[in-house]
């Protein structure tokens, strides 16, 4: 026999607002099993917002960073700039001298459509 208080498990709830949106963590809830967790998630997080998908995950199945690991992450000092476009900005001027535009993020992300032949 278990106590009534042992009956609830903590579930973490994730939902996606649209096809291009990432799965986003919403909050947690208490439920006795994952089917009930799904029902509770809909009650708590889909009352009015547009949601196209919901995940519920038992909290004990998630390996979260510990408090110490998070501190370490936020305080690390290694330089990651060489992995970004920072430092290539001078190209804009170079291309301008050659009467060409810069192919920056905004430009490249706009190349969804090419001319139909």
């Amino acid at each position, binding site marked *: 026999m278990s106590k009534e*208080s042992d009956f609830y498990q903590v579930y973490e709830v994730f939902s996606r607002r649209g096809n291009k949106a990432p799965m986003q963590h919403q909050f947690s809830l208490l439920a006795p099993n994952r089917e009930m967790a799904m029902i509770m998630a809909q009650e708590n997080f889909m009352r009015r917002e547009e949601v196209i998908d919901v995940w519920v995950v038992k909290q004990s199945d998630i390996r*979260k960073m510990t*408090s110490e690991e998070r501190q370490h992450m936020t305080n690390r000092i290694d330089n990651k700039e060489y992995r970004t476009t920072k430092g290539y900005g001078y190209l804009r001027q170079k291309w301008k001298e050659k009467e060409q535009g810069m192919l920056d993020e905004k430009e490249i992300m706009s190349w969804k459509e090419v001319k139909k032949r």
Partner: protein
Amino acid sequence: MYNYVEDGDSKTTAYVEHDKAKYDAFMARIEAGEKIEADDWMPEDYRMALIKLISMHGISEIMGALPEKEWVPKAPTLRRKLGIMAKVQDEMGHGQLLLRVAEDLMKPYGKTRENLMEDLLNGDLKFHNVFHMPTKTWADAGMVGWLVDGAAIISQTNMLDASYGPYQRALQRICQEEVFHAQHGESIIMALAEGNEYQRDILQESLNRWWPSLLMFFGPASAETTGSSKQDIMIKYKIRKSTNEELRQAFLTKYMPRVFSLGLTVPDETIRYDEEEEKWIYKQPNWDEFKQIIRNNGPRSKERLRLREIAYENNRWVRQALATEPVSV
């Protein structure tokens, strides 16, 4: 819907000798605007203040749904019925978010939601003064949405930058939904204010009755009034920004012009805004009555607690049916 009740009969946790280095690092983090998470080290009095605040906030959301739900079957039109039903569901949803935040904080003490429900029913966990009051007419349904939720919005938005991450995240969602509650209440009030004589009468009568509760909502200005106050520790730890009195003044500044613009009055002929002092002068509510109300001696305290108890008992079979192994009761 929220506020922090100063219950007057608990002592502020005595200062305990903190691990100095941990304490200094903690203070440096909150001073820098960082958020504290459930598994981070935190001083004991911070944890205790949060548990008290958030469990009371959460349970008040749930107890707050009770006076309003009485008006779901009695709403005058289908549109109003849908509106108030949605609001009642939101309040229950808010309660569930907040109880989760409180449960994570209570975990080191081995306490769960079941303990919170027990504490509510045996009177150790207080719920907000406004939810001990009756809702007598449809005007009260509007008044709760407009001014009671208005007062709650003043308190809750003051904590949108709270240092405790999970609470602050719950408040972002709650405050967004409160916008709907406020406008839902305003719409009921506006219809009554622009209605016939009977409608205007019940509106004025409702405001007269709710006035002392609205002033009490923010708690006493200082600990002298009710014997204890947690507002200093809440400000020190960046849980909230303003004092009880500052919040009450902000409420009066935002809402009094609107009250008067509808041709309504409040039952305090001395109320006025003092331009020189830049503050509202008003008659104090009866703080002894406030103490009685939050000790579950208000007009509807016993009935509402009994309703909560019946719901808990009546749904026991559902918990038993869903348990993977037999549950002892």
